Every structure is written in C-alpha cells, then in structure tokens.
C-alpha cells in the first residue's frame, strides 16, 4: 500500500500540475463561461443591406400592400426582435447582461438595412421579369394567382412562386418571404372587411410566465430550457471528467511502457499497485475537472436563482455515478495502455468500446424525456452504460426514478467496476511486459486467464 502513494502522487503531479492542464482545464473554463453568457450578442453580426427591386406579378393589391408594409413598418429588426423575445425567457442575470452597452449595440447591429422597391406587372411580364432577375436588375419576381387572395383558399391555391437571383442570402430571402406572405394575409383580411391591426392583436398568443413553488415556501421563475439541459449537462460533465483522465491514463501508461520505465516500476511494485496508483492519481485529476466544470455550472444556476433545480441528492448521485464511470473507463484505459506500444494501436482497441459508450449521448433525448421508459430502464442495467444512463435518468425532470431501480443500478454498477478492475489488472499484468504487435481482443481475454 505504501507504494501506491508515491505512484498516485507522481501520476497526479505530472498530469495536473502542468502548464497544459492548468491552462486547458482550469483557466480556459473560467474564461469560457462568461463568454457563453454573452454568446448570443457576440454571434449577432451585421448583415449586408438588401437593396433593389422586387417584382410582384398577378396581384396589384399585394404589390401595393407590400410597398406600404416595406415602408410603413420597420420590418428590419426581425431577428433582433426574436432575440429580444428569447431574452425575455432568460433569467434576470442574462437579461441584465444583455443591457450591457456592448451587447446592446451588437443587437442593434443585427437590424437589417434595406432599401426595397416594389413593382407590379401583369402575367405577360413573367418571362421578361425572370430575365431581369438573371441580369441582376431585379432581386426577385413573385408570380401570384388571384386565388391566393381567396378568404378560404385551398391548399393548392394558397401558394405562389417566387424566383430569386442566385446568391441571395438566406436572411434576405427570409425578409422577402415574410414581407410577401404578410402582405397576402393583410389583403385577404382587408378584403373580408376586417381591421387587420385588430385581428393581428387578437391573434397574438399570450406568453406564460411559469413559476415553480418551492418546497420551503417562495416561488421562482421556471425555465423549461434549463430543466431540459440539466440531464445532458450532467452526463457531459461525467463524460468530460472521466474521458479526459482516462485519456491521460492511456497515454502515460503507453509512455511508461515504451520508455521501458515500466520494468523498473515492476521491480519495485506489483502490477496491481502500479495500476491502482495510476488510476487513483488520475481520479484526483478527474475530480478537479468535475469540480471545475460542475462548480461553474452551479455558480451559474445560483446566479440565475435556479439552484433549487439541483437538489443535494442530485449532487450525491452525480458523485456516485461519476466514481462508477471513472473507475470503469480508467481500468479499460489502463489495461489497453498496458497492452499496446503506441496510441494508434490503442485507438483501434478502444474503438468498439467507444461506440457502445457513445450510445447514451445519442439516446439523451428519449431517455431524459422519458426517464422511466423501457429504453431508459433497460439501458440502465447494461454495465458499461449504467453510470451515463442513470445520471440522465436521475437528473431528468419527469417522474422520479424509483429508488429500488437506483439501488440496483448502484449495486450492479459497482460490482461491474470491481469485476472490470480485476479483469483489467490481469490484462495490465501481462500487457506491460509485452512488446511488438498489438494484441487482438481475443488475446486480451486469454491474458485474463494467464496465471
């Protein structure tokens, strides 16, 4: 046991107390987190202005309406308005950040500048107008049938064609689409003798401010998106923490083997002691990653007054399933590292295991939407998937997972950890002394049985 200590410390020191780790795993997240909050504003970019003439063929009233809409109403801030609406669903802290001068100016930059003229013509001008579009004289030409203005158009009638010039940006196209369809609707409403402005205000769907009643009294704003994101955030957290350290473990074992330092270590400690020391050393590294990223997430939730979305039992589950996942992945990585001589061979051995382990990532949605569904229950009893699927289930916002299922998953999972560590230590014991060609998975199984 006294040999495990120095091995653990060396493994930890040469992974965590290095510039690369400190910058990559500690400094970067600290800077990335505030950036993510400001991300919507930073992504908003000023678009090229929309300049030119749009031809509307076959419907003079729509052309008139479009001309009016284009000039009467400021339609240019469509996506800026969407952003503001999205912001309204965000917590106060993010809304506060959005009032920042820099972000605010980013939002106004998002407004589309345009100078759009509308022309109209009869159906005989279609070919000529199309040629003008090709010649870049027109932005586009909309060809309409009067049927489109019917108050009750059939689905066949409720359409028209729009021909646009090549290279028109999606944002410009969206703007023109909205302008034309709004104009058609407004003409229909007016033709029916109704007041369009009144109809539109009546049709506006009310927004709901959902509030969650807290157990200890009080109420907080409920953010559906946050509840949806928590399961995948927890699973990714466990993934990042375990696979980052697992990868370090893999490369350090390969390095010790290819440097021939392994035999020196073996003269001082048993293979089990070496493997244990290395795995425990990397466990601390993994824990730092978990605390770093998890801690930032919790700080963010506290800032949004959403800390109660993560009750203490969830943190306990996170730790338990993290430990389970880490020791499973670490023992696989250490044994594969011991069996091969370079990273390329390691990747071909780990490949199949990775395909299995990536399943929970693919199945995130169905599992977190229905944490007690058949898929979720079945996959949470398959040993390598247990920690990842269970963390999705226990953090999902649906019906709580029955405790007996959690207990079975914990017992089965930790039994699997012990079995995997035993098998992997057998492989490690033989693998560290092997040189040359990488073994096949079948040979690895044979090594388990070697005396």
């Amino acid at each position, binding site marked *: 046991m006294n040999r495990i200590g120095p*091995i653990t410390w060396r493994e930890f020191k040469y992974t965590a107390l290095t510039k690369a780790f400190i910058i990559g795993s500690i400094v970067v997240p600290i800077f990335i987190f505030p950036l993510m909050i400001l991300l919507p504003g930073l992504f908003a970019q000023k678009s090229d202005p929309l300049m030119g003439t749009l031809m509307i063929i076959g419907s003079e009233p729509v052309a008139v309406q479009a001309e009016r809409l284009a000039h009467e109403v400021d339609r240019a801030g469509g996506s800026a308005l969407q952003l503001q609406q999205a912001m309204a669903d965000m917590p106060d802290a993010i809304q506060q950040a959005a009032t920042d001068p820099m972000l605010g100016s980013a939002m106004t930059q998002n407004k589309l500048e345009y100078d759009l003229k509308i022309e109209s013509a009869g159906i005989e001008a279609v070919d000529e107008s199309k040629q003008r579009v090709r010649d870049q004289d027109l932005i586009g030409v909309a060809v309409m049938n009067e049927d489109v203005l019917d108050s009750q158009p059939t689905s066949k009638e409720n359409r028209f064609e729009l021909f646009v010039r090549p290279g028109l940006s999606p944002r410009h196209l969206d703007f023109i689409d909205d302008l034309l369809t709004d104009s058609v609707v407004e003409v229909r409403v007016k033709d029916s003798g109704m007041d369009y402005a009144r109809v539109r205000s009546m049709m506006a769907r009310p927004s709901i401010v959902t509030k969650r009643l807290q157990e200890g009294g009080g109420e907080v704003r409920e953010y559906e998106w946050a509840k949806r994101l928590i399961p995948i955030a927890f699973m990714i957290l466990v993934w990042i923490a375990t696979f980052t350290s697992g990868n370090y473990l893999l490369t350090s074992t390969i390095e010790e083997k290819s440097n021939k330092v392994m035999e020196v270590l073996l003269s*001082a400690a048993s293979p089990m002691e070496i493997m244990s020391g290395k795995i425990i050393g990397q466990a601390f590294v993994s824990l730092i990653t978990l605390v770093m990223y998890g801690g930032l997430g919790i700080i963010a939730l506290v800032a949004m007054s959403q800390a109660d979305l993560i009750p203490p039992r969830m943190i306990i589950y996170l730790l338990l399933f993290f430990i389970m996942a880490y020791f499973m992945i670490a023992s696989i990585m250490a044994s594969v590292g011991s069996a091969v001589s370079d990273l390329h061979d390691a990747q071909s051995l780990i490949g199949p295991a990775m395909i299995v382990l990536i399943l929970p990532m693919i199945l995130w949605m169905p599992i977190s939407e229905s944490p007690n569904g058949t898929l979720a229950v079945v996959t949470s009893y398959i040993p390598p998937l247990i920690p990842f699927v269970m963390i999705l289930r226990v953090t999902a916002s649906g019906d709580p997972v029955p405790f007996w299922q959690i207990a079975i998953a914990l017992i089965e999972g930790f039994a699997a950890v012990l079995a995997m560590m035993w098998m992997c230590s057998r492989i490690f*014991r033989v693998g560290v002394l092997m040189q040359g060609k990488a073994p096949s998975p079948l040979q690895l199984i044979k090594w388990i049985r070697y005396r």
Partner: protein
Amino acid sequence: MTSSAIRLEHVDKRFGSVHAVRDISFDVPQGTLLGFLGPNGAGKSTTIRMIMSIIYPDHGSISVLGGSALSAKNSIGYLPEERGLYRKMRVGEFLRYIGRLKGLSQHDARAAATKWLARMELDAVERKRCEELSKGMQQKIQFIASIIHDPDLLIFDEPFSGLDPVNAELMNSIIREMHAQGRTVIFSTHVMHQAEQLCERIMLIDRGQLILDDTMSGIHETFDPRTIEVEPSNGSSLPGDIEGIVGRTSSGDRGWELQLADEADPHRVMNQIVQACPVRSIRLRRPSLDDVFVMLVRDRVHETGQTNMIPEGAS
C-alpha cells in the same frame, strides 16, 4: 550454515506454446557473486522476472531472502537490461521517487540520491531532466536507482553495456564493494569475459534449462584444457604430424593454437613438441568461459538440432 538468498525448486514457465523455463532448480547462498549466463532468448529474463515476482511460475516455488518474492521487493535491487527513465522527470526527483517506491522515507531517499550522485560523479545533473543526459549518464542514473535503497540482493542485467571503460570500471568497483559487504550479486550477461573477471560462480541457461552451475574453479577443473598455444623459435617450424593433435590454427606472429584429440594427454603432447622443435613459449590454455559457453550450447544444438529462441515479447 549460509542461508539462501534465492532458492528455485522445479520452476517451470510457459507462454502459450513456448516453454520458456523448464523445471529449473538452484540455490544461491547469501553473499554469492553469481554470473547468470545464456544466449539470447534462453530464458534468463523470464527467470529473473520470476525471481522479481514480476511474473509467476506455472509450477514450482521461488523463495527470495527467505520469504516470498513479493515481500522481498524492498530488499532487491534490479537493473533491467532495457534502460528506462521518465524523460521529463528531473534526475534527483526520479531517484527519490524510486527510493520512495523501494520503501525509503522522503528524507532517506533524498540523502541517498545525493550520496550516490556524488559517488557516480553526477552531482551536477541532479536538477536536469533525464532526457537531457547522455546514454551513459542515463545508465549510471538507472544503476543508482537499482541500489539507492541499499538492497541485500542485487540483480544486474547487462550492467556495463554502453559504458566507456572508465565508467565501467567505476561501476565494477561499486559492485565488488557491495559484494565485499556481504550482499548477494547476480549479474546476467552474454559478455563472458566480464562474468569471468567478476563472478565466483556461474550458471548457464539454455532453452529454458540450466545446463551449468559451478564455481569458476570448478569449471576450470571440469572442462579440460584442450588447446596448446605454441610459439616456435625463429627459423624453426612445427612438425607436420604431431600425435594427439587433431587441428591447428595459425595465430600469426604469436605462433599456433593446437587442438588436442579427446583421448590425448596434454603433457605428453607438449613434451613431444618441445623435443621435436625449439620453441620460444608453449602453454596449455585454460578454457575460457567463452569456450565453455560455445561448447555447451553448440553441443546442445547438435544433439537436438534446434536453435534456442523465445519469441520477442513472450517473456
């Protein structure tokens, strides 16, 4: 009665279809300086790794320093044939790390590292990274790592390879010194003259079997000298036909090497030569360890028609 440093009883080890070690038994008393010899792939490293409890025998038992091999790890110093250091680690830190693994306290490991670096004339490199050192220096560092914990049993695999004569002599003197202090030293090599100079007892292993286990003097007695070295005086020449001689090889200016027939009496043959022609010198040459090694291994190849290789990586 001297107690055993190492005792192997009917030790057998296979790697799949390769029979690496075949029913080996031997006893090495404490304080012995033993040469463990054999051709490449003979099973030396496998045997040493079993002694080190890095791998375990399929059959038989191994006792090291009176107990199990595993419990004796802190009393064994091992220099593997393939040198290995952490490239990025600093020399002093590496030595302290190995010292700690070998059961030394932090303080003792630091003191021992400093002492041995000074002794090996390497005190200036304590703060350097291992990758910055020359190959010879790296080997000396690894040698220190094998003895830093003051072990009772030392096992060196090819300790002098890659060293210049000055450093080889320095290491040689340390090994002799440690042996003089009563430690058991086993060193494995295929450079026979080194073993001959250093060891008092020799074991020869071939294709997993122990084919020789004797003291140097015992080997000299057992293996009759079968070569006469003769240097005729100026102008004289050896008679063409000498009774009891089955072959001759010219040694250039130094005369001839004559191979004795199996049944020939060396002293009679030498008398015969002296009487037949004037000689400047004549002597019966002792069989070197090289001769013994080649003789034994060659005879076994002739007997079995097999070469003796364990596949790379099997051991």
